[in-house]
C-alpha cells in the first residue's frame, strides 16, 4: 500500500511556444477574456 509514481519532466507549453516563435502571437490571442468571449455562446447557461 505504498506506491511510487515516477514523474517525467518536459518543456512547458510556454517554453515550446517560445522556442517555436509562437508565444507572442499565442498570448495576444489567448487572454482568458478573449477565450471567454469567443466561446461564450458554446457554454451551457450559467
Amino acid at each position, binding site marked *: 500500500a*505504498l*506506491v511510487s509514481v515516477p*514523474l517525467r*519532466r518536459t*518543456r512547458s507549453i510556454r517554453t515550446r511556444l517560445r522556442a517555436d516563435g509562437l508565444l*507572442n502571437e499565442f498570448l495576444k490571442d489567448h487572454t482568458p477574456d478573449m*477565450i471567454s468571449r469567443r466561446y461564450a455562446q458554446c*457554454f451551457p447557461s450559467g
Partner: protein
Amino acid sequence: TPSLRLGRISERIYNFMDAQFYGEISLGTPEQNFSVIFDTGSADLWVPSSYCVSEACANHRCFKAFKSTSFIHDGRRFGIHYGSGHLLGTMARDTLKIGGLTIPNQEFGESVYEPSEAFLSAKFDGVLGLAYQSLAEILGSPVFDNMIEQKIVDQPVFSFYLSRKSSHTRPAGELLLGGTNEALYIGPIKWHPVTAKGYWQIRMDSVAVQGVSLFCPVGCEAIVDTGTSLIAGPTSDIVRLQQLIGATPSHFGEFVVDCARLSSLPQVTFVLNGTEYTLTSEQYIRKERLGKNEICFSGFQAVDIISSKEPLWILGDVFLTEYYSIFDKEHDQVGLARA
C-alpha cells in the same frame, strides 16, 4: 473566476502553461493509459474523452468508455475554468490505477471540449487533483480521499520529490502515495498546519530578501502547489521583488535577468512557522536556451488570488524542487525537508 461553493469564495488554479512534471495513470478495464499532472492546487481528475471534438484532443490519448467493461455512466456535466480557456465535459466512474494500486469506482471527468490551443502542445493528457474536496468541481470524492476511504494506502499521506535534473535512466521526480521516501530528503521534516482545507494552505510569517523582511511582514497565507511552476505572489509585492533582483519585463510579460549577474543576486527567504526556507539565485532563476542564447527568467510571477481577505502566495515547482514536500491528510499538515 471566483465561484461560490460550500458557502465560501474559492478560486481554482488552472494554468498549465508552465507545468512540467507529469506521470502515468490508467483508467478502465482493460487499462487505458494517460499522462497527467499531479496537481495539489485542484481536486478533480479529468482526461480527454474519445467524443471530444476539439483539435487539442486529437493530439492526446482519449478515454474510450465503450471499450471499458467497468465503466459506469454518470452523465452530469462539468466545466472547469483555467488560465487560458475553459473545459467542458461529462462525469463518469471507472477503475483507476496508479502505480500498482487499484481504485475502483473513481469519479472523473471526460472532457469533450478543450477550446484552448494551449492543450494542443501539452505533453500531458489530463490532470489529477490532490487538493481537498472543497475545491472539487466534480461531485464525489477526489482520488486520494477515495484511496483513504477504501483503505488502499497505509497512511493518508503523499509526498513529492521534484528535481531539476533528469536523465533517460533517472526520472525527474517521484510522487509517493501512502508515505514518504527517506532516501529523497535530508534532515528533519518541519510540519506546517493547514490553515484552510481547500488548497494545501499554510501560514507564512514573512518573505525576506537578503535577510531583510520586506514582504508579508505581519504574516500571510501561502499554498503549496505542484501544479504551479513558479513562485507567485500579490502583484504589488512581486513587482517590487523583481526590481530587487534586477529583473526587467520582456515583451512576453515575463521577467528576465542578465545571466552574467546571477551570482550577485540576493537570496530570497520564505519564513514558514518560524523556519527559514532560503532560495539562492541559482535556485529561483530558470535558465532556458532560446536558439543560441541562454535566457534567465525570474522564478517569480504575479498572481492575485485572495483567500479569507488575504492575498495568497503560491509555492510552486521552483520552491518544491529544493524542498521535499509531504501532504498529510490525517493531521492536515504539510511537511517540508531539504530535497
